[in-house]
């Protein structure tokens, strides 16, 4: 096994094994989003029509907050025993580490979505009136947008004193265009009132731009003291 692809696979396998044994990220994400669903359902008592309008926002805000928990865990694991230094002194390319972390976080957030979506449907009495096949596309593109930026900024805030606070401060403003596209696309699919295609294309473009930019800059972030 060699090259970026091989190293990405090896690092991803290592991360999945660590998560399987510790369950740090998945447990905290699950409890957090469960709380959000329950609290929101008690706070609002919407009709089915209102639910369809606000569900996009509720769902993505819940996933965004939950993803932040996982993103902090991803790098905290590398800081324990300063294991990240072992990677930095090796000849392994930085991008393999970054890609493995992004894919790992994508898997964790996707598992969370798979578990939480039925709950959202039950609590908010949701049914898509638009083309439902577009929902998984929006979910995949939206999740990728969150984890690419999140993984990058979590790495950037790694050595700051209050990194748990720093990550949302950096991540949320830059995620606004993606978040807007996710919420609008989800709302469009659920209500069926307008087409989600523009927002899906915007989300895809956002993903491409930020994935390339992060891959270019991650080497600098990794080598920073």
């Amino acid at each position, binding site marked *: *096994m060699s090259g970026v692809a091989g*190293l990405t696979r090896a690092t991803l396998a290592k991360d999945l094994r660590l998560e399987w*044994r510790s369950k740090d990220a998945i447990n905290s994400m699950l409890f957090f989003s469960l709380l959000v669903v329950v609290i929101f359902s008690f706070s609002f008592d919407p009709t089915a029509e209102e639910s369809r309008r606000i569900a996009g926002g509720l769902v993505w805000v819940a996933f965004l907050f939950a993803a932040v928990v996982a993103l902090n865990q991803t790098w905290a694991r590398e800081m324990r*025993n300063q294991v990240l230094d072992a990677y930095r*002194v090796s*000849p*392994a390319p930085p991008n393999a580490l970054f890609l493995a972390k992004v894919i790992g976080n994508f898997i964790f957030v996707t598992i969370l979505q798979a578990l939480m979506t039925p709950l959202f449907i039950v609590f908010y009495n949701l049914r898509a009136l638009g083309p439902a096949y577009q929902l998984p596309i929006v979910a995949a593109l939206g999740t990728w947008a969150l984890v690419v930026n999140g993984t990058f900024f979590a790495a950037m805030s790694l050595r700051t004193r209050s990194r748990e606070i720093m990550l949302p401060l950096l991540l949320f403003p830059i995620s606004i265009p993606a978040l807007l596209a996710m919420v609008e696309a989800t709302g469009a699919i659920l209500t069926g009132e307008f087409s989600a295609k523009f927002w899906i294309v915007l989300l895809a473009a956002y993903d491409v731009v930020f994935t390339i930019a992060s891959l270019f800059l991650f080497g600098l972030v990794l080598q920073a*003291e």
Partner: protein
Amino acid sequence: MLPVVVVTDLVKQFGRFAALRGVSAEFTPSRLYAILGDNGAGKTTLLRALAGLTVATRGSISMLGTTDLHSVCGQLGYMAHPSLLYDEMNGMENLRYFARLYAISDGAQNNEDRCAGVIRAVKLDPSLTRPVGQYSQGMRQRMSLARALLNDPKILLLDEPFSNVDLRSAREMVSLLIGLREAGKTIFVVTHQASLLEGTADEFVWMEAGKIVSRTRDLQHQESR
């Protein structure tokens, strides 16, 4: 004999604090150097600079004939004060992952043999299934040394390898270092337990307030000053 490491006017500042204040030295191959000094003398910072983990504020380091330390990082072995190991994985799992970072072998069997070989070299059992987090401090130190030896480095940088290790194990580690030096490796050991290297180290490099203040052949020579 041509020097293997040349440090020229190395300065490292952390804000207003200068951890290294113009260190210049040459080190020849196949020797064991003990770097000694009080806390805050700059020993660890010098070692991290040699490993390429700290960017110098001023000055340069040439290693194996190049100032591009990243190009020779595959020929360095670095052991830090923390273990640089994942607590949730056992020794073999840790080393298998780090072996991939160094592209030690694409052949699974060679990889296994190499990992098991370095674990045995530090007098640990490769079949131990306990995660590293459950090892004693001494075992963790030895596993950390095994990780540093994994890529069969030409230059070995060891930060406090004997701390929290019992006397017998420390002497076994010294014997291992002697063998490595005889195999042609250049070894730098930062330690507060200089007596363990008396009669073994080729040179004692004394640091004080970010500078090398003297280099002696034996330990008493400086201690009597």
